[in-house]
């Protein structure tokens, strides 16, 4: 399984501050490892959204966060149902771990913010996060997924996450 390492390296370097050399080893990820990355990425965004609901008083930010919980939960349910049908389990890997570690740091950082400072940081992170993950999914994962059903789910997911990216862009614009 090959990856377009330039897209992947760029996405990871921008979003997760890891060196490109390390990102390139993601070329070895198989379908089940890719599924694990996606599952972790979904859950991270759900955690960000719960944080937003706990801190933000801004109705638009809260509505966005509720949509993130609703949509990412739906995608994860669909993914788990497909994996159950395929009698397969997602496999942890270095990229999932990197995502998780960076999310912990970001949650710590955002937890200390309040009011508009939090809203702005949350919105900007949602935009950057969806951009990075969408790039990863579109240019690195989808072209390299072997199983047709898994690929179809990722294609459907990408459509959803691109809508989130556009929504986040709108939210960032309103918070300026």
């Amino acid at each position, binding site marked *: 399984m090959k990856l377009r390492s330039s897209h992947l390296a760029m996405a990871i370097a921008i979003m997760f501050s890891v060196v490109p050399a390390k990102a390139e080893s993601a070329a070895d990820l198989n379908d089940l490892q890719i599924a694990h990355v996606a599952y972790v990425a979904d859950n991270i965004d759900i955690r960000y959204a719960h944080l937003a609901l706990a801190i933000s008083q801004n109705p638009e930010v809260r509505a966005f966060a509720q949509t993130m919980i*609703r949509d990412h939960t739906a*995608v994860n349910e669909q993914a788990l149902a497909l994996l159950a049908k395929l009698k397969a389990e997602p496999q942890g890997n270095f990229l999932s771990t990197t995502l998780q570690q960076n999310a912990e740091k970001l949650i710590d950082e955002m937890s200390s913010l309040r009011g508009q400072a939090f809203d702005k940081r949350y919105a900007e992170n949602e935009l950057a996060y969806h951009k990075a993950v969408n790039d990863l999914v579109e240019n690195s994962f989808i072209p390299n997924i072997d199983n047709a059903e898994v690929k179809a789910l990722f294609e459907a997911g990408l459509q*959803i996450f691109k809508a989130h990216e556009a929504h986040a862009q709108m939210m960032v614009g309103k918070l300026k």
Partner: protein
Amino acid sequence: MTIRTRRAVLSNSMAVLTAMAFGTGRSSAAGPVEHAVSITGFKFVPETITIAPGDRITWTNNDIVPHTATAMDKRWDTGTIAKGKSKSLIVGEDHLTEYFCRFHPKMKARLILR
């Protein structure tokens, strides 16, 4: 009420929803028309439909995630349409023609009143 008589098959909740959303409607001279809108790939398809009071619009969600069809001024709203489910409303005379998905505000479509 004309609509309720003609739409005796509708459920009570549908009738309540219709009354809340649109008030009293009126059928066109040719009789009410059924319109189907598919929600697919974060788009309302077709994006524009021509309607008359008394017509019924049914939105079916073919996406993985839930959507709504909601008037821009919030005067009517289908509520959440789950994956694979449909919701219907009967067109009244005082509705706004543009609508969107409350969950995904970039999704927009239009009703043109005949």
